[in-house]
């Protein structure tokens, strides 16, 4: 299939980079690359929502934070004081709890990571539906503001509750044993497996999303984006399609939050901040809105540069400047105009 060619290239690139870092003994690049992979997951999800369904979300960091914070909280909160609670003992009997010792050697019981992950995703879905139903009725500035408001509320709640560590966030989040021998954690030893896990998830997400946009649903989403009223009169349940897309992209963000939190061993409130949401939107815009591969490429590039501190103290300023320049001169995205034109010219010359 023609549309799976870039996917093949992506897989080759993933493997190629790993082999290259191995050959040059620069395995440390895999750490920021892994983190980038998880951010890319948020970005491709947002790209589906913004570029294909045409709905802006300035609150996607909120979903990332819901996933990350819930998973972190459940796997670090010591349940020993509540062990007589019937709900807790029921969870224990179901095997949802892990017993161990904390740093000081006293008894420490927390929720099993799989259960925490499932719970976080479930909450994300519920929240995304609850927020999505009213929010997606709005358009333009109202939609932007409502999603921004949602993001701010999540940020504020993360800061307000001692349970979520307030301004310090949550630290010492344990690894997430996914399969025997494969655990999501930042240990130096499991770096290669985590790299493949993270980028494997991105490849999987890309496969699913590329399939989706080439399906009946993808066509309907493009129609909604182009002319919502006409799409509705063509028999498309526009409200439901927008909502489902919103939920899918929220879940992708949440999953990214969960995995990155376990990988990093912690999460802080800045992950829920407005600037993070704006950054996701910026990257999607730079990638060309309705261009999953563009968003993935630009996301990977900019995130890795940012995570390696290449912009120094100008990190936010760089994103602001990129946003303005792209939106002023190339609203179709960086890859949208110049590169595709160049590429076509090269191809034509070749013929």
């Amino acid at each position: 299939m023609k549309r799976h060619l870039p996917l093949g290239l992506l897989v080759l690139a993933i493997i190629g980079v790993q082999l290259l870092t191995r050959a040059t003994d620069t395995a440390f690049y895999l750490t920021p690359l892994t983190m980038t992979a998880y951010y890319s997951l948020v970005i491709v999800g947002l790209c589906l929502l913004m570029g294909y369904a045409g709905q802006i979300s300035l609150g996607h960091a909120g979903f990332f934070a819901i996933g990350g914070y819930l998973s972190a909280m459940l796997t670090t909160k010591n349940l020993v004081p509540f062990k007589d609670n019937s709900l807790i003992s029921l969870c224990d009997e179901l095997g949802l709890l892990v017993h161990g010792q904390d740093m000081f050697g006293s008894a420490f019981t927390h929720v099993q990571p799989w259960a925490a992950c499932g719970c976080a995703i479930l909450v994300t879905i519920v929240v995304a539906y609850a927020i999505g139903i009213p929010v997606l009725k709005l358009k333009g500035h109202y939609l932007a503001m409502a999603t921004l408001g949602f993001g701010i509320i999540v940020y504020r709640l993360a800061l307000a509750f001692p349970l979520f560590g307030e301004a310090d966030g949550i630290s010492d989040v344990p690894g997430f044993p996914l399969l025997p021998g494969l655990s999501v954690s930042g240990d130096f030893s499991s770096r290669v497996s985590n790299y493949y896990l993270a980028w494997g998830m991105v490849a999987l997400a890309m496969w699913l999303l590329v399939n989706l946009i080439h399906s009946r649903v993808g066509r309907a989403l493009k129609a909604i984006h182009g002319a919502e009223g006409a799409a509705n009169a063509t028999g498309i349940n526009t409200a439901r399609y927008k909502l489902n897309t919103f939920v899918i992209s929220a879940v992708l963000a949440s999953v990214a939050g969960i995995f990155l939190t376990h990988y990093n061993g912690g999460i802080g409130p800045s992950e829920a901040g407005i600037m993070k949401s704006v950054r996701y939107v910026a990257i999607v815009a730079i990638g060309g809105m309705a261009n999953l591969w563009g968003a993935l490429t630009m996301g990977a590039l900019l995130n890795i540069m940012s995570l390696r501190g290449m912009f120094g103290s100008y990190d936010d300023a760089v994103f602001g400047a990129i946003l303005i320049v792209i939106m002023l001169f190339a609203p179709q995205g960086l890859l949208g105009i110049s590169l595709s034109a160049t590429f076509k010219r090269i191809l034509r010359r070749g013929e």
Partner: protein
Amino acid sequence: MLLEIKNLSRRFGGLQAVSDASFSVRQGMIKAVIGPNGAGKTTLFNLISGTLLPSSGAIHFKGQPIHGLPPYRIARLGMARTYQNIKLYPGMTALENVMVGRHCRSRAGFISGMLSLPWTKKEENASRAAALELLALLDIADLAEVEATSLAFGQQRAVEFARALAMEPELLLLDEPAAGLNIYETAEVARLITKINEQGITVLLVEHDMSLVMDISHEIVVLSFGEKIAEGTPSEIQHNKEVIRIYLGEDDA
């Protein structure tokens, strides 16, 4: 009765766009709604297709009340429409635009779409074939892969037509299908509407072009300032004094 409209009214603030209008459309006929500018014709269409909610009154389609239903539900019941100012989906080819019309005749959802299940591919191919067939019927098969919004006006109208037909509707609402077309193109449209009608699709159209309306419609409703002032066959309407005074008289002046 395929479509029955009873005492339908719609107000915008102080403006009474449609006022207590009642008429019905029989299965298999071509019915036209005419009236001077601002008579409420497009509002009437928006009310029927569910884009606007009526202030009062009732609309029944196939014996079922549809006022208050969202447009997509009405569309699924078998009603398709076109727009006076063509509404195609930008960024999509003509073929894709028509394939969107197949939406309610196919069923691949989010999960099956993401997983690209084998049956969805079959369904896609069927949709594509049906869409291509319609494009061929409208003589624009060669434009299938061109971005729809970049086509010439008449061609865009044809794509919109094909999209509506792709829904396999029982009732087709045409909002000024001949607007902006020249004499030859208008004749072509007239022929096409008749042809569609002969295949068993009921047509309700709003049109300014009197010759077109008089040629093809079986019945005509005349609106003025939101009110129905006459209803009947073309010859009856042509001889209705009220209509001549309000409508044709004005048109001749």
